[in-house]
């Protein structure tokens, strides 16, 4: 059946780089929560260093994400409108509350580290109970996941079709990117000991991610085409699949298997991390861009899978 003068049935997202960044950082915050939990209470100095790095970074990201969102909304007070209500049916609403709570937890954990480092009075350490660590991790999982749910629980055919896949690989991508960011920070800090573990975590997350994406692609059909074909598909393949998953995976695998000279190994790990991060960003960007294309395809929108 022909559509109406080939005009789009749906309206595409009005979302640009700021929303992409917001979603991307949300994923990383999720992953950082996990790493913060995994490195919690470990006596090794390297782990302690990693713990501190993830907690400070998580808090920093939690602090800059609202301004990024605001840059999309236009005016600061508009962010507050989100805090009028809690709406369980709206991933955007839950997400913002997730972000707020995550910021709280991340702030508490960061505060403990600050006290620990003597930057703030050590008494403040008791303001934040240690339960905030698993809480931050849980909220983090939510943060990484909701960025996927936010996209997939919409009317856009591509996104709706990926209602399982998109949240799943968003979590994976968030974890991989967080691992990559932690690797990067550790490399810069010279905290080499934690890197193999981080890289293994990253490899696991990437592996799960690529499998999920592959499975999504296998669904095929008109609805998923915008993500995997054409300009967007090429970018996704080059930057996310190859550059952001396969290459870093290989580099990480090489790093795990072969002992390289220190400086080269550092370069390898920096490269792998950077590529993963770029891949993670491009994944979100491709999703949004492909969502716009998908909205323009009335045929895919006429009949949607539930």
């Amino acid at each position, binding site marked *: 059946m022909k559509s109406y*003068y080939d005009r789009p*049935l749906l309206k595409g997202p009005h979302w640009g780089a700021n929303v992409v960044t917001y979603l991307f950082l949300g994923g990383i915050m999720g992953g950082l929560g996990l790493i913060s939990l995994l490195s919690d209470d470990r006596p090794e100095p390297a782990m302690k260093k990693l713990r501190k790095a993830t907690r400070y970074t998580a808090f920093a990201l939690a602090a800059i994400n609202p301004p990024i969102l605001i840059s999309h909304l236009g005016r600061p007070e508009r*962010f507050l409108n989100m805090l009028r209500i809690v709406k369980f*049916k709206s991933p955007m609403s839950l997400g913002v509350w997730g972000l707020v709570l995550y910021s709280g937890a991340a702030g508490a954990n960061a505060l403990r580290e600050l006290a620990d480092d003597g930057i703030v009075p050590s008494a403040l350490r008791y303001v934040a109970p240690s339960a905030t660590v698993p809480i931050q991790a849980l909220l983090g999982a939510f943060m990484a996941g909701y960025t996927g749910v936010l996209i997939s629980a919409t*009317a856009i055919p591509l996104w709706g079709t990926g209602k399982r896949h998109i949240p799943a690989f968003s979590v994976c991508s968030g974890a991989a990117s967080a691992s990559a960011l932690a690797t990067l920070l550790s490399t810069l800090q010279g905290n080499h000991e934690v890197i193999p573990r981080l890289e293994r975590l990253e490899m696991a997350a990437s592996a799960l991610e690529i499998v999920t994406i592959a499975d999504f692609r296998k669904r095929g059909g008109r609805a998923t085409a915008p993500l995997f074909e054409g300009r967007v598909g090429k970018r996704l393949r080059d930057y996310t699949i190859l550059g952001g998953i396969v290459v870093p995976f290989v580099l990480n695998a090489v790093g795990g298997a072969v002992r390289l000279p220190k400086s080269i190994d550092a370069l390898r790990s920096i490269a792998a991390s950077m590529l993963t991060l770029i891949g993670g960003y491009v994944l979100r960007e491709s999703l949004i861009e492909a969502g716009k294309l998908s909205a323009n395809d009335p045929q895919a929108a006429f009949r949607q899978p539930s």
Partner: protein
Amino acid sequence: MATGFFTDATLCIGCKACEVACKQWNELPSDGFEFTGNSYDNTSQLSGTTWRHVDFVERESFDESGLKTSWSMVSDVCKHCTNAGCLEACPTGAIVRNEFGSVFVQPDICNGCGYCVVSCPFGVIDLIEAVGRGDDAKKYGLATLHDDRLNDRKTAVQATGGVAGKCSLCFDRQRVGMVPACAKACPTESIQFGEIEELHERAKRRVETLQERGVEARLYGADDIGGGIGALNAFFLLTESPEAYNLPVEPVLPSTRQTMGYAAAAAAALTLATIGWAIFRGDS
């Protein structure tokens, strides 16, 4: 008691009075001046600033009596869904269901996040880009070239800027007992406004009459449309398939996709947490 629209394509003469009456009442700007070549439709779609839109579908077919031309028109509008994707998605509570059962956007609460836009299965609601004065106003045809009064006028839309826009079912008019502007303007009663129950009755009778006369008529959205959306408070009588007017046949309410999404995310998170635990704490 919910009110809504029964829009009957067989009575529409494509005069677009509804489109214009809506813009006038709601002080909406024009969407630009572009000739499309698509029949008599140059506004093309519902938008943040076009809340009624008349579709023009031309068809030619041949049968034993020769060429048959048909030109079918219908005025599209927000469906005011029983379960509305836009309303559910809105994180600020700007979109509410009002006392008339209509889905209403409160422009002062909307923050322009645009989430409703991708959550409407009918492609109705959209963001209104900020429309300012001067050149912008001219571009959107808000001001005439000579009238300063018009240059200074700030429409409701201009004043808010960057908010979601769609049919309000003329909440302001309904509150004072007036019929919505579009229905009021419609010369042929193609747009009928009233209580839903009564409109359903009328629609069923109308379909019967038309079918008796050999007209292929069907209702769209009078009953549950599926996908979790339920019935539509603005429903239609069509003579062409819904696709011909870019109306979805099997739309889905986005929020029904959430549970599965969270579950998938949780599964992935749990898997990674387990692996991570093994990697980081496996030795402890």
